[in-house]
Structures are given as C-alpha cells and as structure tokens.
C-alpha cells in the first residue's frame, strides 16, 4: 500500500493493475498483499488473478462485471487494512550441474562477457534468487536477483528445442525450463529436479516470495539425483526463512 498503482480495463471483464516498472521485492510484497486481499474480499466469486513482476490481471466472471463498480471496489480494497495471514517464504536448494555437457552456452557467454566459465558458474550459484511468479510455461519460475555481471541479451535466434531442466540466462533474468520447449535464453547447466508435477495437489513447490539457491553438483551426483527424482523419492531440501 503506498504505490501509485494504475488501473486499466483489459478485455470484457478484466482489470489490469500496474505498479512501477521495476523488478523489486517491495513491489512484489505489495502486489501479493493486494492479490490476497482481492481474493479474500471476492471469495467464491470466480475471480482469477494472473500476477507478474509489476502487475495483477484480475479476471472476473463476465455476468457480474461492471467496470466502474469493480474499479472503485478495487481502489477501496487496496487501501483497506484487511488482515492477511500468509505462510512464511521458504528457501529451496536446487541441485544444478554446470558441466559442459549441459552448459552448452558457457563458452559463448565467457567470450562475450570476458569472464571465465568458472566465474560465470560461481556468480550464478552464489546469488540468492527471489521467486516473483510462475508464467510462460507450467512451472517456469521468474526469478529476480541475477548478478549484473551475467546480464546478457537473449540469443538473436531462439532454439527450437531446449531440454527439460535447462538452467538459462536471458537479459537480466535466469530460470529453469520445466519441460522441453523452444527458448531464446543462454543455457549454462541443467537441474534434475521436477519443477512441475501435474499429479500433485500443488503442482509447483515454489511460490512467489520463496527463495531459490542453486547448488552446483557433479555429473555423477546429477545422475544420482535424477534416478531418485524419477523414482519419486527425492526430497528437495528447503527451510523456512525469516521474512
């Protein structure tokens, strides 16, 4: 509460709410708080919300929709002091193998950025990343916190097929491809973890505000973990963190 948020009509029965154009944890907190308040206020009204770095898209069931009414309702909810109880964020430790077998673009980045491959890997796994939202593909985490030294424009021609688990860098972002997909980011490693599980009650383990730490593992450890993941017995390491 306290940002100059902008409301825009979007489609027949949707309203887009925009925050300043920044990737920033205090904006994320404000967005998530507003989202929870909207959902609490409109419980069972069929409200669907898509959240991103600096926006909420609130989709209403069309039959009930009146733009002006909803707009003033949203403005009231934003400044309301509705209490929201939320679970504390968790820190997830994600094994990543940065071996050349997976890190097929390490060489290119190294040449372009004039950083050694070892340094690229170190910079990547020493940062603590914040999960901002899930989008693009089922289970694709949008993370903030990439070391500036690793900022690199996306590939000019996207690859048609990127392997499941590929850990990649594009622009000022990093992420893990949860399944095979086309993509334009530079690939530096691979994680044996499933980021999306359709059979689970919560198909993604991570939520917005959680933190991610990548833990470098050897090729051997990678395949060991992969076997456990495929058998459905791998326990991902995580801990509750102080908010």
């Amino acid at each position: 509460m306290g940002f100059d948020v902008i409301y825009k009509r979007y489609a027949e029965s949707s309203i887009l709410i925009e925050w300043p154009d920044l990737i920033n944890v205090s904006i994320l907190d404000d967005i998530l708080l507003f989202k929870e308040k909207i959902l609490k206020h409109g419980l069972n009204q069929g409200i669907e919300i898509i959240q991103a770095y600096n926006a909420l898209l609130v989709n209403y069931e069309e039959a009930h929709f009146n733009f002006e009414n909803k707009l003033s309702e949203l403005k009231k909810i934003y400044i309301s002091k509705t209490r929201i109880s939320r679970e504390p964020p968790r820190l997830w430790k994600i094994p990543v193998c940065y071996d050349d077998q997976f890190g097929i673009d390490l060489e290119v980045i190294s040449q372009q950025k004039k950083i050694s491959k070892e340094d690229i890997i170190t910079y990547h796994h020493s940062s603590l990343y914040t999960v901002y939202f899930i989008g693009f593909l089922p289970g694709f985490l949008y993370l903030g916190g990439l070391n500036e030294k690793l900022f690199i424009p996306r590939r000019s021609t996207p690859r048609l097929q990127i392997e499941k688990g590929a850990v990649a860098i594009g622009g000022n972002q990093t992420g893990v491809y949860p399944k095979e997909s086309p993509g334009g980011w530079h690939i530096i490693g691979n994680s044996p973890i499933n980021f999306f599980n359709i059979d689970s009650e919560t198909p993604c383990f991570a939520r917005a505000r959680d933190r991610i730490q990548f833990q470098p593992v050897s090729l051997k450890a990678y395949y060991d973990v992969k076997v456990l993941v495929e058998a459905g017995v791998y326990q991902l390491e995580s801990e509750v963190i102080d908010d």
Partner: protein
Amino acid sequence: MIKILNPGFYSSIQDLGRVGYQQYGIPFSGVMDKHAAAFSNVLLGNIKSAAVIEMTMTGPTLQFNTNTLICISGANMNPTLNNIPVKYNRVIKITEGDILSFGKLITGFRSYLAVLGGFQSEIVMNSQSMYAGITKEFVLRKGDHLAIKINNSLEENHNAILRVNSSYLKTSRIEVFKGAEFNLLSTEQQRKLFTNNFTISKNNNRMAYQLEEPFINFLKPIITSPVLPGTVQLTPSGKLIILMRDCQTTGGYPRILQVKETGINILSQKFTGNGLSFKLA
C-alpha cells in the same frame, strides 16, 4: 462408446478450459470458438461447458457403438452419416453402428461435435481440455475409444429450434479494445492498426495466430506481464501476434490490442491466407 476410425487433421476434446491454475503458468485452453461449441451443447440440452470434439480443417471418421443424439456446429466440413449428408446446427439421431465422417471444408476452420450428455475423458484441474503436458493426450488418435457421460433420456425432445447465426464465419472485421501498451504507439501506428488490412500467416494454431504483414515498431519489450487469449502483441521485429486459447499466461511484448471474445470466435474460424481488419469496440 465412440471409436475413432480416423482422427482427421487435428481433433481434440475441449470444454470451456482451465480456470484458477494460471498462477502455476497453466494456460486456459478450451474450445477456440465458444459460440459454436455452446450452440451445439445448448441444442442438445447439455450444459454449455460439456466437453465436445474440436475438429480442425479436416474432420475425423467416427463409429458410434451406442444410440445417442449429436449436433455439429461451427465450420462446415460436409458431414455425412453412413455416407448420407447431414445438417449443421441440428440435432441428429444416431443408431448403434452409424459412421460419421466429414468431407471438404466449405466455410470456417473449426467444427464442433457435441453428444448428448457430453464426452467423457480425463479431467485434469477441473477441465477435460486437452493440452500437451497437462492431459496425457493432446489430440485424438486412430483407434481411441471415447465414452459418453450418462445422459438424459433419449425420449425427451431436445430438438429445440434455435436461431442459427453463422454470419460470423464470413466476417473479417475483428472487434478489439485498446491494449495495455496501445498508448505507447505513435498516432500513425494507431491509425494504421485500424486502416490496414492484415493476413493470417501460416504460423497459426491453438496458441497464437501470427499475422503476415510487418508492422513498423519502435517499442521496446516490456517487463514480463500478464496476457490473455485475444491479446495482440507487437514483437521487436514488427510482427503482430494474436494470442489464442492455449497461450502462455505472461509475455514480454507490448500488448497493443485486446480482441473481444466474439473476435476470438471469428478468428478461430480463420486460417492461413485469410484477411482481417481491426475495429475499435
């Protein structure tokens, strides 16, 4: 049961899609042309959200192993029942052993087959809509057997007379709202959006329709933000992309227009080479 003898070009089970799972990056999916699908269901006395078969360009060949009622709507693909032509937008009585097949595409691009009670198939996250990676199958295949939900009595007369409005199959004018980044366009760009004619490129599917004509663009990508089916994106290289039902939940290209629901239905019936123009709603 219904047996798929030939699946046609691209046939899938669809309902009104998956709502409430976008927070996990899961697309809405669902029938491309909601108008046509709902029409068939309503005519049979089904609920609007009953699952139907969405058929694309060329229809399947199906054998019914049960007595039932069906209705076909949307694109006209010259359907025949045991080689005898049958009508669109009418309740058709099916006798066990009947074979339904489709011929040449006449109008539109996507046709819908509804069955009394609706099709039964895997339900994932409250929806039967097929989507790769969410449902086990994303298209119907030869030899598949489809179950039908326990239906109301066949004796009831479901043959309500509804006025058919198929004119949308031929229109090329797409009604739109201004998109979230519309105001960043130059006056000249804004004018051209509504005066130019556009053509659907060969890159068109349930995820998105890319338009053929390059559109001059000076806008930079935006910070990744929510999108919806119907969102029109403008890429850095000047391509216009209209997102459709299977689209991703967020995107990084400026959103210059938002196609109305009726426009998405119209677009769903268009394909490679078809023309269109945008009109502000």
